[in-house]
C-alpha cells in the first residue's frame, strides 16, 4: 500500500459557499488522500449535502478551487473533468432508481452510461446487497430500504476510486449498515477514498471527521 496511500486525490483550497445570502462555510481546506474515509459532520442545514454536491461537479456556485490529482477541476480543462467523472461514484438522497423498471434494468442503464467500468455482473452485485431473487421485480414493488439497496449495488459495480455518499445508511437495516461499513473500509484500503455524511454512529476507527460547523462564518464582515 505504502506509496499509494499518500497519493493526494482531491484537494480543496479555501472553499467558500453561500446560499441565500447565508455563508454555509468558508476557508475550507481539505486534502483527500487515497485510503481516506472522510465523514462530513454538522447539524442539519449546515451545508453537508451542498459540499458533497460541489464535489460531484453538478453544482458550481462556490468560490475557491478544487483540484483533482493536482490539476484544477473547476474551470479547468475538460480532460481533467472527464478523468474525474470516470473515477466518481455518487449516491445521494435521491436514489436515482426508476420505479417503472426492475433492479436489473436500472443497473443496466447505470452500467450503460458508465460502460466499460463494470467490475462484476449485475446479478452478483444485487446478491451482495441482499436482493437475490429480486432482480426482475419492478422497483415500485420494493420497500424503501430495498430501493436504497438497488442504488447501493452500484458500489459493487463501479471501479471508481472516489465514492461520495450522502446519508448512505438511510433506511438500511443493522446488518446492511455493518456490511456497508466493511465495504467502505475495504474500498479505502484498496486505494480509493470515501467521503460521506451520516447522522448515525459509525464503527470504523480510521475515519477522519470534518466538522463543517467550524468553518461557518469565520470572517464576520
Amino acid at each position: 500500500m505504502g506509496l499509494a496511500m499518500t497519493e493526494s486525490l482531491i484537494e480543496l483550497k479555501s472553499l467558500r459557499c453561500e446560499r441565500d445570502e447565508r455563508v454555509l462555510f468558508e476557508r475550507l481546506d481539505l486534502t483527500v488522500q487515497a485510503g481516506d474515509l472522510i465523514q462530513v459532520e454538522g447539524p442539519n442545514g449546515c451545508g453537508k449535502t451542498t459540499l458533497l454536491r460541489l464535489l460531484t461537479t453538478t453544482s458550481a456556485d462556490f468560490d475557491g478551487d478544487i483540484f483533482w490529482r493536482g490539476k484544477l477541476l473547476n474551470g479547468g480543462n475538460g480532460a481533467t473533468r472527464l478523468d474525474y467523472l470516470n473515477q466518481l461514484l455518487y449516491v445521494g438522497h435521491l436514489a436515482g432508481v426508476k420505479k417503472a423498471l426492475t433492479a436489473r434494468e436500472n443497473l443496466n442503464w447505470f452500467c450503460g452510461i458508465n460502460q466499460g467500468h463494470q467490475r462484476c455482473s449485475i446479478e452478483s452485485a444485487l446478491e451482495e446487497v441482499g436482493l437475490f431473487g429480486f432482480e426482475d421485480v419492478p422497483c415500485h414493488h420494493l420497500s424503501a430500504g430495498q430501493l436504497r439497496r438497488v442504488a447501493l449495488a452500484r458500489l459493487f459495480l463501479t471501479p471508481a476510486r472516489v465514492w461520495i455518499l450522502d446519508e448512505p445508511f438511510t433506511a438500511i437495516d443493522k446488518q446492511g449498515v455493518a456490511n456497508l461499513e466493511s465495504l467502505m473500509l475495504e474500498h479505502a484500503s484498496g486505494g480509493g477514498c470515501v467521503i460521506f455524511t451520516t447522522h448515525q454512529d459509525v464503527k470504523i476507527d480510521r475515519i477522519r471527521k470534518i466538522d463543517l460547523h467550524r468553518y461557518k462564518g469565520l470572517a464576520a464582515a
Partner: protein
Amino acid sequence: MNVYEPSQNRNNQDSTIQAQSLNTPGVWSGFWATFKRDGLIAVRHRGEMANPIMFFLMVITMVPLGISPEKAVLAMLAPGMIWVVALLATLLSLDGLFRSDFEDGSLEQLLMSPQPLYFQVLAKVSVHWLVTGLPLTIMAPLLGVMLSLPSAGFAPLLASLLLGTACLSLIGSIGAALTVALRKGGLLLSLIIMPLYTPVLIFGASAVNSAVEGFPIGGQLAVLGAFLAVSIILAPLAAAGALRISVNG
C-alpha cells in the same frame, strides 16, 4: 473494458484499480443505454403515452361538430387545424420529458456520468419523438379524412409533420430543461416555447395548403428540413446547458 469476475475477486481487484485511469465509455453505448431505458419506461407507462394522441383525436373529432360539417369549410380548415392541434399535443407532453428524472435523482447521475450530455439529451428526445411525434404523424392522414382534406394534401401532410414534429420535440426539450426545477413550470414552458414553435407551424401548414391549391411544396419542406438540421445540432446543446443550470439551483 474491464469486465471482472464476481465478488470473490473483489479484494484483489481493489488493489489493481489504484494507478490505472479508466477508459471513457463509448458515446453510442451511452446513447443506446438511455434510449433503451426511456423506451422501456414509455412502454411501461402506456397510459401517459396515449394522452397527447387522445387529445389530438378528440379535438379533431370535435371540429366538425363545433364549426360546421360542411365539406368545403372543413377542407379549408383541415391543414391548419391538424397542424395546430399536433403542435399543442406535443406541447402537452413536454413537461414530463425531464421531470421524473429530475425528481428521482437519475438526472444527477446522468450529469455526473462521463457521457457527453448532448447525446444523452438526444437519446431522450428521440424516444419522446417516437412516442408522441411519430404516432401523431401516422394518425394525421386518418384525421385528414375526417376533415375531408383534399387528396392532394395527404402526402405533404405526412412529410411536413414528419419533419415538423421532430423539430417540435427538439425545440421543446430546451423549454422542458429550463423549467424542470420549477414546481409549476407548465405555463412558463408554453411561454418560452410558443414563439419558437410558430415558424415551424407556419411553414408546416403552408406546405399542406400549397399542395391542396396545386402549388409546389419543395420550398416549405426544405425550410422545415433546415429547421430540423439546425435543431438537431443546437437544441440538445441548449437543453444540456439548461439542465446543468436547473440541477445546479
